[in-house]
């Protein structure tokens, strides 16, 4: 095991070992401080390990890890946000009674989400995917409040559905393969040839769409993310949602390309982007607005991947990863910022609010920020047709949403001016904010192939600037219609699903009655006789 392979192995195994150590009460009581350290090996691996690094484990564990270009980019952003959120959580949760439970769930979710970026074989991808989704439940219901409980139940129901879809897709994918646990790359290679190609691609899209939160499968996201404590919702919205993105990057046949499914993905992406903004504008709580902004951004990512799939060009995966990293850092910083604003007052509030403003607008694509970089990098991919226009409109929409968020945040300040955020929470937020500016800038040349200087040219600034102004204008328009706040309840469509509840209950009562009848002695006896006649007759007639 060479050094990089060992480092690569440490990515999932270090946090897992921390989780296992939590079995001892002594360790669990002190584990809160380790939250910040857990993702560090992943950060180091993302930076140091050469692209294409391999780590293979002996037979009983059958685990292979591989680090490729998009994986490394995503891993870097994710690891950084995880450790920052970990530090934030360490100080926030210092006196929370349930902190030991929180730590264990945190380590497990961390293992799952970071492992997903580096795992190379099919079975362990599914294992880590399951670990990430089920462990996240622990974070969501941490506060034990009724809305958290409701969000948790809906989250798990849909997570289990996603896993079922993914399982059948993986089984169909690996069915023809001789090796029991094939590598993802080799299996996707001969996906084009397999007879069940369309079925597999559909199932993958459905499964990962459910995880990313594309409309109409997004209903759990606006409920789950706000319900979790601030650092947890930062990480959920920032990184755990990216499991869907890395899944699509790994499993969609970019080389062979699937034009029809590509356009489907684009369509869904566009709808989701607009839907996120339209519903987000009507929300009152800051965290819910951010959740809907995540839904909208995931829509954009889906469009990028859809274009890549339609034109059969694997380059789209790198751009999508770059955009995803930008979203990870900015969204994480925003969530942490919301937590900090709530506890700062007076002069310091205005400073933090200013920084939050910059972050929010960077999501909309403000020049010189990572948003602009991401938009410029993905511009050539989208080409100049109606799609590019739709995307810029979506950018304006997200600016509108962010301005709405800032208006909501204005009166979030603490009452007495003297209160100031704890250093333990403020510093991680600053680190993530800084990273959200630095990392995209440093990665831009590698990803977009042009020098950073080209960004400062006036026409690039204008290309990014005018959607911002459009968004501001739209905000003025929307501002005059305050009745809209609270018009659509959180989790929109799920409320419709709730109306389906009595239907489900009557169906299950029906089944209960049938069971009571079936378990009466004469009915069971008759069943026995009928089965004997059926089987005997069938065997005698046909054989």
């Amino acid at each position, binding site marked *: 095991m060479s050094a990089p392979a060992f480092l690569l192995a440490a990515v999932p195994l270090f946090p897992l070992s921390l989780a296992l150590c939590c079995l001892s009460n002594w360790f669990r009581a002190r584990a809160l401080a380790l939250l910040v350290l857990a993702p560090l090996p992943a950060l180091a691996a993302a930076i140091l390990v050469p692209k294409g690094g391999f780590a293979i484990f002996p*037979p*009983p*564990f059958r685990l292979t890890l591989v680090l490729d270009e998009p994986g490394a980019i995503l891993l870097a952003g994710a690891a950084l946000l995880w450790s920052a959120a970990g530090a934030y959580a360490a100080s926030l949760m210092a006196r929370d009674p349930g902190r030991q*439970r929180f730590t264990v769930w945190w380590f497990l979710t961390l293992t799952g989400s970071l492992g997903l970026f580096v795992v190379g074989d099919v*079975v362990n991808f*599914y*294992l880590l995917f*399951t670990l990430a989704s*089920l462990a996240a439940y*622990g974070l969501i*219901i941490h506060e*034990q409040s009724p809305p958290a*409980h409701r969000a*948790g*139940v809906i989250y*798990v*129901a849909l997570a*289990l*559905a996603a*896993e*079922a879809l993914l*399982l*059948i897709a993986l*089984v*169909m994918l*690996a*069915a023809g393969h001789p090796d*029991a646990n094939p590598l993802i790359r080799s299996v996707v290679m001969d996906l084009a040839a397999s007879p*069940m190609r369309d079925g597999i691609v559909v199932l993958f899209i459905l499964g990962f769409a459910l995880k990313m939160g594309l409309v109409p499968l997004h209903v759990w996201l606006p409920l789950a993310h706000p319900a979790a404590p601030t650092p947890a919702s930062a990480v959920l919205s920032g990184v755990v949602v990216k499991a869907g993105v890395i899944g699509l990057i790994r499993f969609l046949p970019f080389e062979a390309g699937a034009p029809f499914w590509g356009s489907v993905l684009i369509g869904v992406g566009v709808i989701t982007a607009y839907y996120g903004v339209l519903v987000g504008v009507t929300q009152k709580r800051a965290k819910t607005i951010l959740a809907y902004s995540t839904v909208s951004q995931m829509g954009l990512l889906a469009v990028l991947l859809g274009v890549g799939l339609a034109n059969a060009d694997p380059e789209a995966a790198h751009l999508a990863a770059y955009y995803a990293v930008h979203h990870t850092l900015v969204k994480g910083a925003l969530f942490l910022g919301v937590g900090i604003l709530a506890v700062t007052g007076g002069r310091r509030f205005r400073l933090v609010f200013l920084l939050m403003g910059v972050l929010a607008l960077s999501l909309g694509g403000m020049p010189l920020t990572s948003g602009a970089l991401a938009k410029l990098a993905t511009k050539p991919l989208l080409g100049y047709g109606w799609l590019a226009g739709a995307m810029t409109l979506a950018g304006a929409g997200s600016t509108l949403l962010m301005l709405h968020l800032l208006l909501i945040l204005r009166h979030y300040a603490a009452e007495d001016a003297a209160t100031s955020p704890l250093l333990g929470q403020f510093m991680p937020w600053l680190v993530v904010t800084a990273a959200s500016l630095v990392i995209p800038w440093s990665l831009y040349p590698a990803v977009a192939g042009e020098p950073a200087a080209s960004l400062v040219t006036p026409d690039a600034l204008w290309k990014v600037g005018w959607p911002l102004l459009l968004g501001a204008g739209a905000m003025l328009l929307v501002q005059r219609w305050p009745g809209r706040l609270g018009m659509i309840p959180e989790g929109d469509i799920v409320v419709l699903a709730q109306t389906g509840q009595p239907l489900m209950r009557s169906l*299950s009562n029906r*089944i*209960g009655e*049938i*069971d009571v009848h*079936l*378990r*009466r*002695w004469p009915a*069971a*006896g008759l*069943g*026995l006789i009928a*089965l*004997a006649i*059926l*089987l*005997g007759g*069938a*065997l*005698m007639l*046909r*054989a």
Partner: protein
Amino acid sequence: MTAALHATTPGGFLLVLAVILPVCAVLAILACGPRSAARIAMATLAAGLAVAVAITVELVWSGAALTYVVGAWRPPLGIALRADGLSGAMLVMTALVVVAVGLFARVQYGLREGGGSERERTTFWQMLLALWSALNIVFVGEDLFNLYVALELLTFAAVPLVCLDGRAETANAALRYLLFALIGSLLYLLGVGLIYGQYGTLDLLALARLSRPDPALSVALALMIVGLLAKAALFPLHLWLPPAHAGAPAQASAVLSALVIKAPIFLILRLVLDVAPGQVAFLAGQLLAVLGAASILFCSVMALRQARLKLMIAYSTVAQIGYLFIVFPLAAGGAGTSPWETIAWTGGALQLISHALAKSAMFLAAGIVIKVYGHDRIADLGGFGRALPISATAFGLAGLSLMGVPPSGGFVAKCLLLTAAVIEGYPWLAVTILLGGLLAGGYVFRIIDKALAVSASPLPSRAGVPRRLELTALALAIAAVLLGFVPLRPFGFLQIGRSGLAMAGL
């Protein structure tokens, strides 16, 4: 008559020990009286486990099936015992679960207040050992009538376990169980009579060569399979299982759910895949698959509806054995391959073992929770994760294996069955497996949610529950999860002793 199929192999006497040792213990307890019951039982548990492991080692080492001709009278006149790969796996599974349940009961009965009366203790030890002997005979028996006597021994050992606590409603459940199981055994016996009338032999291997699709065999197989379905409580015939397994004490219901209903299923597996000629096997497989799928879906929904914990686990048992019945069409084996080479065969065997381990762990954990809380209403079990962390973890791990979440044994079994369903082209079975997993997730999660919830009322004190009690449940649950790591494919343990059989019928 046909050439002698069975010849005693060197390791053969181990089979006799596996069968007769628990019987000797039962007689010893009867002769020496109640005070010695626990000591004799513990000694037999250890010896039995050693014999089971020795059988497996002998199987792996010799690579061929172990055979023992009892009393040196060759079949068809005499009786032979034969253990192939699958039987070896079943023996070890049974030994593991019985030893774990025995340790659990030993600690349970050692407690001062919750210890149970002398009647309960002595009867439990005798019934557990008799049950173990009956299971071993079912897994290694080769003679149809000998298997009938083993099935009766199993029923007579299981029924008193159901009404061990002496309450009237458990006595009613036990009577319904006894009568329905009796109808099942009598139908099975009728089938045995018809087969003897048609072929003049009761030996499974000889029958596999002689069986041709003629009316007598069709009627016989139909009656035997339906009789065994009644004893295995598959979906339409599951009237006796929920009250019986819910009424029994925790350690008893663990053994009942995990092992007792597996014996008739194992016999159906042998009858359909070994004895029945090709066309008959295909037809029977289709019907059993339809029943299995109905059982998975119907009883999973029923499990979701239950308000009491043990009833929910009992219904989950009926649902999970549905998986074992959808193996038949998948393992029917095409023209070239025979059933035991298909992956569905390995998947089915793995599901059998992982369900046994997971279900017994779940029942033991539930038993501890009910003992501490004093009731088993799910609604009022809030926060038992904090009161009994080890039991909650055991329950969770067992639940994960039932749901088929990686890396548990249940997941590997479900994966193999799904792959077989995809390859053999049974989309409706694939959908059933997935829906079953989802529903299982539903009812397991309902309990995990209760475990993690913060309960309004103060948590009951766990004074009376020693840690060793919970560790046995946890050990079983961990075994169910670790089963996923056992490398099955390379050396094909489950295929030992089968490849040599030239199945004339298939």
